[in-house]
C-alpha cells in the first residue's frame, strides 16, 4: 500500500514533467514568435539566433553505509539501513519552456524532489516531494508497579517505533494570455506510515493499569485549494476554495476490555480514536495598488470543520484588514486588524457504546470565541543610520458558553507595546535593539503572565573585511500573581500562588576567511529557561471529608542548553574541497519539587530530570577528477549520551561515497 501511494506521487510528478516536455513543441508552434533574442552588438544589424538556455546540471550515484548502536535517538531522522543513493540537478530552458529538477534520494524513506515546468508566464507547474524516516522514542514501561492496583504492561517491549512521513506539494498556475487573470490549484498530500507507541490507561486512578502497545499508523491527508485571481484596475481580487480531508485508514479505533468503574460496566470499549476529519473554506482577498503611498488589503474567509466520528462541527469566520501609509520617506504608518469568530457545535451528551453495554455521558460545550486584534505601528527613519519603530497592539478575546469551564474567564485582553531601533553607529557596526512590554488582563492559563518584559539586542560587527562577528541576546521576564487551580474535593476554584519566569538566550558567532582557501565559522548558543511557580497537588483525607490541595511553594524549574559549533571550509587545491562541521550540545534540566507531605519515600524531581549531550561531526571531501566527473566522500557521526537515565544512549555513523557527473 505504501509503495503504491508513493509510486503514485512519483508518477504524478514524472508525468507532469513529461507532459510538459511533450506538449512543449506543440505549444511553441501555437504561440507567437518570441521577442528577438538579445542582440550582442550595439547596433541592430546582426540577427541573433533564438534564445536557448543550454541544459546544465549534474547527477550522482553512490552508496551510503549506516551503522548504529543502542537507542536510535542519535539517528532520529536517519533510516537505519545502508542503501544506494542518487541525485539529479537539472536546469533546462529551451525557451519559452523552462524545466528544473533537484532530486536527492538517500533511501526509500528519505528523499527530496523539487521539479518544475513553465511555459512563458502562462503555465507554472511545480511539485515538491519529501520523504523522511523518523525514529520514535520507546518510553519505558519496565517498572514493578504495585499489583493489582498499579500494573504496567508493555505488550511490545522489543519494538522499535518509527514513522515514515511523505509530503507532496503540487501547484499549478495558469494565466490568461495578455491579461493577469490566473487560475490556480495547490494540492498537499501527507502520508504517515509506521508503528507508534500507543500509551493508554485501563481503569482509573484507584485501579491503574498502564498499557503500552504498538499501533500501526497508516494515515493520509489531502488538502486541495482551487482559486482564481485577477487584476481589475483599481483593485485586485482573489477567490479560493479549500478542501481538506484526513483519513486515518484502518487503525482509527482501538478496543480493549475496561474494568467496571462507577456507573460503567466492565466491557470492551473503544479508546484512543483517531477520527476522520474534513474541512472546507472559502476565502476572498482584495487589495489596492501595492505601490501607492496608501495601500490597503482585505481578506474574508469562512472555514467549516467536521469530525466524522463524533459528528462535531465548527465554523470559523475570519477577517483581516491591512492599511499602510507612507506619507513621507521619513515616516510610515501601518495598521492591521484581525477578526476570528469560532463557533463550536457540541452535543450535550454522548453515548459510549461497548460490546454489551452503553452509557450516556455529559459533554462540556466546546469553547466558542470571538477574537479581535488591532495593531498600529509607526516607523521613523531620520536618516540612513537610524530607523525607529514603535507599535501598539490590542487583543480582545471573548469566550462564549464558558459557564461549565470553571477556570476560564469570559474575556482576556492583551496590550502590547514594542519599541525597536535599527542603528548603524559606526561604519562597520550594525545594532538592533527592541523592547516589548505585554500586559494581560484576566489571563486564562497559569503559564500566561500578568505582564512580561522582553529585551532583544543584536549586533553585527565587521572590523575587517575577512571577519564578521554576530552577537544576539534576548532576555524575557514574566510575572503572574494569583494562579488558578480547580480543586476537586471540595470543588472550588482557588486563586492562589504566583509564578515568575526568566528566559535568557545568547548567541555569538564568528565567521572568518583566514585565507582565500580557508574559511571558518565558530558559534556558541546558550539558552536558559527558569520558572518558579507554586504548584498544587490533590490532598486526600477521608471519603466525604475533602480538603484543599497541598501547595508546593516556589518550585523551581530549569532548562538549559549550550551548543558549540565549528564549521570549516578548506580548498587545498582547485580540484579538492574539504568541508567539516562539529557541533557539541549539552542540555540540562531539573525541577525542585518539595516534600510537601513529609517523609516521602521518593523524590518527584528524580522522575523527570534531564542531562544529556549530543556530539555531531561531519566531514565531506570532494575531488574533481575532470571537467565532468567528481567523487565525493561524506561521513557523519552522531553520539547521544543520556547522562541522566542512560536510556537514550546511542550513536550512528554513516559514510556515503558518490560519483558525480556534470553535464
Amino acid at each position: 500500500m505504501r509503495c503504491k501511494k508513493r509510486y503514485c506521487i512519483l508518477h504524478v510528478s514524472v508525468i507532469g514533467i513529461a507532459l510538459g516536455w511533450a506538449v512543449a513543441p506543440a505549444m511553441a508552434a501555437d504561440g507567437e514568435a518570441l521577442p528577438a533574442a538579445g542582440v550582442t552588438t550595439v547596433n541592430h544589424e546582426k540577427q541573433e539566433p533564438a534564445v536557448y538556455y543550454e541544459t546544465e546540471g549534474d547527477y550522482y550515484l553512490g552508496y551510503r553505509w549506516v551503522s548504529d548502536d543502542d537507542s536510535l535517538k542519535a539517528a532520529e531522522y536517519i533510516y537505519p539501513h545502508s542503501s544506494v543513493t542518487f541525485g539529479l540537478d537539472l536546469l533546462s530552458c529551451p525557451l519559452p519552456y523552462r524545466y528544473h529538477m533537484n532530486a536527492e534520494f538517500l533511501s526509500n524513506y528519505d528523499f527530496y524532489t523539487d521539479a518544475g515546468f513553465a511555459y512563458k508566464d502562462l503555465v507554472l507547474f511545480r511539485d515538491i516531494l519529501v520523504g523522511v524516516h523518523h525514529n520514535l522514542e520507546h518510553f519505558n514501561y519496565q517498572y514493578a508497579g504495585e499489583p493489582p492496583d498499579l500494573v504496567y504492561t508493555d505488550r511490545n517491549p522489543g519494538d522499535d517505533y518509527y514513522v515514515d512521513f511523505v509530503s507532496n506539494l503540487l501547484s499549478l498556475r495558469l494565466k490568461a494570455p495578455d491579461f493577469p487573470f490566473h487560475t490556480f490549484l495547490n494540492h498537499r498530500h501527507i502520508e504517515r506510515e509506521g508503528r507508534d507507541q500507543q500509551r493508554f490507561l485501563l481503569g482509573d486512578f484507584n485501579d491503574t493499569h498502564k498499557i503500552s502497545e504498538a499501533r500501526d499508523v497508516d494515515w493520509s491527508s489531502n488538502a486541495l485549494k482551487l482559486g482564481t485571481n485577477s487584476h481589475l484596475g483599481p483593485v485586485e481580487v482573489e477567490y479560493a476554495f479549500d478542501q481538506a480531508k484526513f483519513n486515518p485508514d484502518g487503525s482509527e479505533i482501538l478496543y480493549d476490555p475496561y474494568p467496571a468503574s462507577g456507573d460503567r460496566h466492565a466491557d470492551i470499549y473503544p479508546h484512543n480514536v483517531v477520527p476522520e476529519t474534513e474541512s472546507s473554506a472559502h476565502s476572498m482577498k482584495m487589495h489596492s495598488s501595492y505601490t501607492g503611498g496608501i495601500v490597503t488589503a482585505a481578506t474574508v474567509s469562512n472555514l467549516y470543520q467536521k469530525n466524522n466520528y463524533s459528528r462535531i462541527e465548527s465554523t470559523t469566520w475570519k477577517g483581516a484588514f491591512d492599511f499602510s501609509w507612507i506619507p513621507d520617506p521619513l515616516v510610515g504608518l501601518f495598521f492591521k486588524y484581525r477578526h476570528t469568530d469560532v463557533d463550536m457545535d457540541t452535543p450535550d451528551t454522548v453515548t459510549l457504546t461497548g460490546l454489551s453495554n452503553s452509557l450516556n455521558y455529559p459533554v462540556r460545550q466546546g469553547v466558542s470565541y470571538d477574537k479581535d486584534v488591532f495593531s498600529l505601528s509607526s516607523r521613523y527613519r531620520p536618516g540612513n543610520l537610524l530607523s525607529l519603530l514603535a507599535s501598539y497592539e490590542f487583543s480582545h478575546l471573548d469566550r462564549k458558553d464558558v459557564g461549565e469551564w470553571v477556570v476560564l474567564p469570559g474575556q482576556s485582553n492583551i496590550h502590547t507595546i514594542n519599541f525597536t531601533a535599527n542603528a548603524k553607529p559606526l561604519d562597520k557596526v550594525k545594532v538592533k535593539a527592541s523592547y516589548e512590554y505585554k500586559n494581560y488582563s484576566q489571563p486564562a492559563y497559569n503559564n500566561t503572565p500578568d505582564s512580561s518584559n522582553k529585551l532583544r539586542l543584536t549586533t553585527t560587527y565587521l572590523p575587517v573585511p575577512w571577519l564578521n562577528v554576530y552577537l544576539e541576546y534576548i532576555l524575557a521576564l514574566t510575572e503572574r500573581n494569583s494562579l488558578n487551580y480547580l480543586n476537586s474535593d471540595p470543588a472550588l476554584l482557588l486563586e492562589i500562588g504566583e509564578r515568575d519566569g526568566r528566559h535568557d538566550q545568547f548567541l555569538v558567532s564568528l565567521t572568518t576567511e583566514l585565507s582565500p582557501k580557508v574559511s571558518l565559522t565558530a558559534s556558541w548558543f546558550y539558552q536558559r529557561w527558569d520558572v518558579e511557580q507554586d504548584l498544587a497537588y490533590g490532598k486526600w483525607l477521608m471519603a466525604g471529608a475533602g480538603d484543599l490541595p497541598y501547595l508546593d511553594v516556589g518550585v523551581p524549574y530549569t532548562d538549559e542548553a549550550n551548543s558549540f559549533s565549528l564549521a570549516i571550509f578548506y580548498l587545498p587545491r582547485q580540484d579538492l574541497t574539504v568541508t567539516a562541521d562539529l557541533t557539541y550540545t549539552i542540555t540540562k534540566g531539573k525541577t525542585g519539587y518539595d516534600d510537601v507531605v513529609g517523609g516521602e519515600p521518593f523524590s518527584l524531581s528524580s522522575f523527570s530530570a534531564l542531562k544529556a549531550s549530543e556530539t555531531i561531526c561531519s566531514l565531506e571531501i570532494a575531488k574533481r577528477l575532470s571537467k565532468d566527473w567528481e567523487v565525493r566522500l561524506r561521513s557523519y557521526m552522531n553520539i547521544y549520551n543520556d547522562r541522566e537515565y542512560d536510556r537514550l544512549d546511542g550513536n550512528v555513523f554513516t559514510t556515503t561515497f558518490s560519483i558525480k557527473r556534470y553535464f
Partner: protein
Amino acid sequence: MSTREHHLNKLCLLLLVIPAFISGCSGLKESKPILPIREYEKMIVGNLYADYVGTRNCLAACHEHDRLKLFFDASTMGAQLKKESGMPLVDCESCHGPGSLAIQGLTKELVESNAKQGIKTACDFKTLIDLKKLPATAQSLICLKCHTVNATFNLHNWNAGLHALNEVSCFPCHDIHAGPDLKVTPLASGKLCFSCHQSAQAQFSLPSHHPLKEGRVFCVDCHNPHGGFADHSLLQDSVKETCVQCHPDKRGPFLYQHADVAENCLNCHSPHGSVNSRLLNAREPFLCLQCHDGHRINTEAGGSISAQRARAFYTRCTDCHSTIHGSDVPSTSGGGRFTQ
C-alpha cells in the same frame, strides 16, 4: 441573536463595505498611483537626462552579460506582455533606469575591437540607478511597480507585514539575475532565512527539532516571508492551521476539547527546537502541573503515597492522558479527561 442572523448581518455589512472599498481604492489609484511617496518615485525613476535605449543596446551589448540576459529571458518577467494589455514591459532598464548615458561613446567597433584583445568594454554604470544604496522601501517599489498590476497575491499582506515594516526589501531574498524563476527553493530557504535569523538556526541544533537541518522540513513550510494573516508571518491563518498541515490528526474538532489551549500549539510546543522530547516547552509533569493540580499525593491514612504510585502519576501525564490534543470518547470516570 442566533448565529445565523449574526452571520447574515455580517454578510450584508460586507456587501456594503466591498463596493465602498472598491470605490475608495479606485480613487486612490486613479489620482496618484505612486505619487504619495514622491521621494521614492524620484529614486527609482533613474537619470532624467538619460533616454531608454532598450535591452539590445545596453547589457546585451556586453558579452559578459549574455548569461544574465539568458536567465532573464528565461524568467517569468522575461515573457513580455503585449502593449495592448497595459502591462509594463520588463527589460534591463525597468529596474536599472534609462541607459543612454551609460553606453554613451560606445560603438560597435570599439566593443568588438576590445573583445578581440580580451578586454571587456565597461559601460558607465554609475549613470544607472544605484539599486544597492536605495532605501529598502524604494528597492521593493522597483519590484512592486510591476507586481502590483499582475495579481501577485503572494504579496497580499506584504505592505503591512513584518519584513516591509522592518525595511527588509525583496532584494536580500530574490536575486533576479540568479535563475529562471526568481524563486527561492525550499532547500535554499533555510540558508537564506538564517543569514538574518541566526538564533532560529541555533534552536534547530537542540536535541528535539524538526528535520530542517536534515533538509526535510523547510522554513517556508510554516512561514510566508511576504506576510500573512497571523503573527510571525505564518503560512496559514493561525498556529494550529499551520501545524495541522503536516499533523492532520490533531486538527479536530473533537468532542472533548482541551479548552482553547490546543488552538495555539505554542502553549506546549517550541517548533524550532527544544531540550525536551517532542518539542515540549517543559518536561512532563511540570508542563501540565503549571495549570492543573496533580493527583493525590497522600493516602487516606494521611501519609505519603508510595514511590511506585508517585512514579506512575508524576513521570509522564500523557501515559494515561494520551488523547491530550482532543478526544472523542469519554474517559472511564466520565467527561473529558483525555484518557480514552
